[in-house]
């Protein structure tokens, strides 16, 4: 345990990094997921195989990629392929995890990155699906990484860009999405959430140090499922902080 001060983003990256399982394949989106994957690879998951949508597979993540197609996404990699291959690899069931971000998330884990407001006359035009929809459709489990704010945790996202559990139990299968896939966790700046297996709604799993249930509830725009027991996320260790600050993001782009 560390007594050092740390930021909310640093803790979020640590909580996300601890979810990576060693020896698995994982689709990595741009931004915070890249930092989490790097931290995992340097700590608990040295045999993680990161996959980047434009073709990078099995890179040694020595320097933080700034683009999902940048050379750092296939640095000393196992393969430098193309987008059809990576997406088809996921569609065939070879990709265990997908790590994603979005502007909005709803109780069923659906993510929005298309527009805020009406699609055809938007209040804000966001970048679009990118590979997000493919990752959310085909990876076995997806993990969303989000800033925990009421305007982001909304009862209904404006446009379902990346599928979570859609409208609830059975909805993914009914829509034709591959069997047995779906969102597993949400890592936020306040807490770790998973999904209630019965209702497929987001459930509080563990609080970040110093955060109360009330604070999470107050920053969430819908009712979270409350389990009998709520866990606690460990603060960043001294080693995790050192890696993040000295090796992973020395320029402070994200932390």
């Amino acid at each position, binding site marked *: 345990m560390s007594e050092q001060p740390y930021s909310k983003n640093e803790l979020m990256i640590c909580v996300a990094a601890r979810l990576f399982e060693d020896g698995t394949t994982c689709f990595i989106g*741009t*931004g915070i997921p890249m930092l989490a994957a790097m931290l995992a690879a340097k700590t608990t998951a040295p045999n993680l195989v990161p996959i980047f*949508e*434009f*073709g*990078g597979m099995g890179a040694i993540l020595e320097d933080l990629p*700034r*683009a*999902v*197609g*940048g*050379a*750092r*996404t*296939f*640095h000393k990699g196992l393969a*430098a*392929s*193309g*987008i*059809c291959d990576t*997406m088809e690899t996921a*569609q065939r069931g070879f990709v265990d995890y997908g790590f994603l971000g979005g502007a909005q998330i709803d109780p069923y884990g*659906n993510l*929005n990155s*298309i527009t805020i407001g009406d*699609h*055809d006359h*938007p*209040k*804000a*035009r*966001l*970048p*679009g*699906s*990118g*590979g*997000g*929809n*493919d990752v959310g*459709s*085909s990876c076995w489990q997806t993990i969303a990484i989000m800033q925990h704010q009421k305007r982001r945790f909304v009862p209904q996202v404006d*446009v*379902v*860009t*990346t*599928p979570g559990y*859609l409208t609830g139990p059975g*909805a*993914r299968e*009914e*829509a*034709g*999405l*591959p069997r047995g896939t779906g969102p597993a966790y949400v890592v936020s700046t306040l807490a770790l959430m998973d999904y209630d297996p019965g209702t497929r709604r987001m459930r509080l799993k563990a609080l970040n140090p110093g955060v109360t249930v009330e604070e999470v509830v107050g920053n969430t725009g819908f009712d979270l499922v409350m389990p009998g027991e709520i866990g606690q996320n460990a603060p960043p260790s001294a080693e995790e902080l050192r890696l993040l600050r000295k090796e992973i993001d020395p320029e402070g*782009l994200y932390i």
Partner: protein
Amino acid sequence: MNILQSGRGELIQPFDLDEFREWNRTKKSRKLVDKLMSEQEAVSKFVHDGCYIGTELYGTVRAPMSLAREVVRQGVKDLRVCGQGVLELDLWLAAGLVKKLDITYIGLEVYGTSPSLRRAVESGQVESCVEWSNGAITWRMKAAAMGVPFLPTRSMLGTGTLEYSAAKVVRDPFTGLKVALLPALILDAALIHVHRADRYGNCQVEGISGFAFEMARACKRLIISAEEIVPTEEIRKYPDRTMIPYYLVDAVVHAPFGSHPGEMAYVYGRDETAIKEWVRMSKTPEGAKAYLDKYVYGVEDHQEYLDLFGPARLDQLIAERERRE
């Protein structure tokens, strides 16, 4: 086949596969013809007002930036564009060249959403945005590359992405699975930047291939820009590396640092300072205009653009390149 759901997006680029075959038969020479020309000549010959156009790879990575800037310089209007883009599509949007988008992702990656995209779409300057995933838009090109009218996928199902696309959902007649059918995409013009090409258009790429393979086979006109023009004997030494054979290509442009300010794997790194300049200036329309005035309209060609940065800066980018060792 029963259509269970139709996306309400417009099919921006309707297609005719037999017409595409006829085009490939009559407009694409099988002879080794010298296609080396300048950016200016290539764009004026093959990119027209209203054409449907795409670029590869994207923005900060192996992007055809010298060609993208030339498109702005020539002021080609009413473009219909497919894509994932960062700087290249941002420039077109900021210059007001884009009328319709088959959009997958346009943003500034590490630096967030694109103010140029926001202004162009929220003001109504871009008339329609039809949504696709990155996988889907590439599979649309793959369908065209295969010469078939559509490909089925298990992406996009159940989402707003599908609702605002032009895909259709059907039940697969073999297994009964619901699948999304993605219509083929045949581009009028495609711009692809590669590591090396010969003057006939045989192209080789290092590192990831992105969607160059598919796009090169899904377009009527293909403009290649290359870091290096090599003799055909060099190509023949490594034929396994040839991703785009000459007969697909209409123009070959020699463009060293053609991806600047983006990177080129194993050749040079990205120019963070120059990228940040666009990020900063594009925040306002005035800033974006000042950037275009300086880096696009204010220079005659790619060489003059590079002169604005100078050899020391470019040497630095070479020193920062990705290395195989």
